[in-house]
């Protein structure tokens, strides 16, 4: 009986030992498997750090190559802006363009003069030589500067494809032309003629118009001894003329049908002095903004970059 009890106790002890051993072995196995999975997961996720950092470096190297080509692309814009501003200074005029919405109106204010006190042709020719000799051969790439269209006796300034300002420096005449017949709403013109030496001031003004119209015209004239104002309504499709008579010459301003275009303005002078004018024009327009550029081009070639652009004065 005792032997049987002892035998049963031994069997139970062995079974417990075996169970305990099996239990803990299995736990150890499970624990090491978890650790292995955890390690693999960490390695996997940490490897993404290497992969991403390597990809970032590669991407940055590619972008750096791209970035280094950017200065080449900005150079033509910088040069054309510089040249266009120089031409504006040389021709000595001011320009402001603004737009209003609902309904769209385009307001153009142009400050210029006819019969300037310097030789425009010589100035343009000298500038052409200066730009080619001193500026364009000192920058990267190959430049081809063409301002021949400004050297033919007339400079042209384009306002997109809607308007054009022609300055005929051989004949002292300025044309502001509406190329697409946009309706001219309002004209404000200030004319100043100075340095008359007291003997060549305005003798008379003659206004000629086929009839009134919807376009408001305001003129303000000043010289050394005279001043007058004119406020009328004109028809922009017909010719209205204001002629200022001096001792042996005259200055004529045509509104409406002028220079072969309707809704336009022409200022033509044969007086021997400089007549300054500030011309404000308000047009119906469906464009929000217009690029303004000279009739001159700059071609810039540098490697794969080949740019041929007008000399843009403003956007």
């Amino acid at each position: 009986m005792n032997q049987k009890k002892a035998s049963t106790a031994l069997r139970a002890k062995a079974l417990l030992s075996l169970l305990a051993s099996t239990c803990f072995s299995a736990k150890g196995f499970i624990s090491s498997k978890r650790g292995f999975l955890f390690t693999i997961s960490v390695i996997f996720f940490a490897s993404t750090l290497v992969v991403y950092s390597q990809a970032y470096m590669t991407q940055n190297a590619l972008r750096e190559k791209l970035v280094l080509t950017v200065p080449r692309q900005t150079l033509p814009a910088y040069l054309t802006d510089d040249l266009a501003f120089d031409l504006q200074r040389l021709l000595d005029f001011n320009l402001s363009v603004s737009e209003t919405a609902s309904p769209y109106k385009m307001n153009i204010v142009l400050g210029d003069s006819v019969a300037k006190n310097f030789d425009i042709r010589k100035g343009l020719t000298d500038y052409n030589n200066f730009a080619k000799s001193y500026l364009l051969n000192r920058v990267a790439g190959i430049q081809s500067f063409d301002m021949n269209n400004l050297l033919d006796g007339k400079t042209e300034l384009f306002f997109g494809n809607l308007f054009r300002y022609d300055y005929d420096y051989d004949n002292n005449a300025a044309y502001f032309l509406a190329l697409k017949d946009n309706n001219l709403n309002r004209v404000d013109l200030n004319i100043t003629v100075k340095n008359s030496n007291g003997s060549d001031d305005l003798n008379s003004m003659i206004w000629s118009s086929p009839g009134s119209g919807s376009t408001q015209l305001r003129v303000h004239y000043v010289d050394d001894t005279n001043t007058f104002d004119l406020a009328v309504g004109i028809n922009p499709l017909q010719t209205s003329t204001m002629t200022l008579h001096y001792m042996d010459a005259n200055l004529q301003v045509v509104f409406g049908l002028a220079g072969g275009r309707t809704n336009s303005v022409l200022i033509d002078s044969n007086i021997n002095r400089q007549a300054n004018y500030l011309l404000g024009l308000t047009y119906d327009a469906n464009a929000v903004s217009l690029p303004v550029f000279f009739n001159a081009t700059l071609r810039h070639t540098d490697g794969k970059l080949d740019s041929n652009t007008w000399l843009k004065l403003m956007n």
Partner: protein
Amino acid sequence: MQSKFGLDKCVRAPLGKKGFVISVDVLISLMMVSFIIVASLFYLSQVTLTSWNSVDLLNVTQDEAMILDKSAVFETSLSQNSAEPILASINASPENYCFEVSVFSQSDFTLPLLHTIKTGCVKRSSDLSSVEQTFVVHSGGSVLFYVARIEGWIKS
């Protein structure tokens, strides 16, 4: 001291093995993590922003040249025969940018008519950005042409 059923030995033995397995795991993990960190840092250290800075610097220098030209600062300085207007303008530029301005006539590019450098800046020989801006001046019925050279660098 052994328990009645010998469980202490059973427990100690797996615990001992477990501790040994973890030590190797940690060692390997530390090595791998170190390698990963070093590799990542190596790649990240290869990333440079120099080209971006040089483009920024060129753009800022071009902008400064345009401002000086279009606000007639060059013209004013020439009429006063003084670089003070130019200096006042470049001193008003952002703090971390430095500029040196030289104005030449069209006939002489060796000796500048006017020259100035932004107050508090010391010229560096490297990482310079240089642009040239032409400008026109009317004087007594004649038209004169000039070139302004503007060199820019980032203040150290």
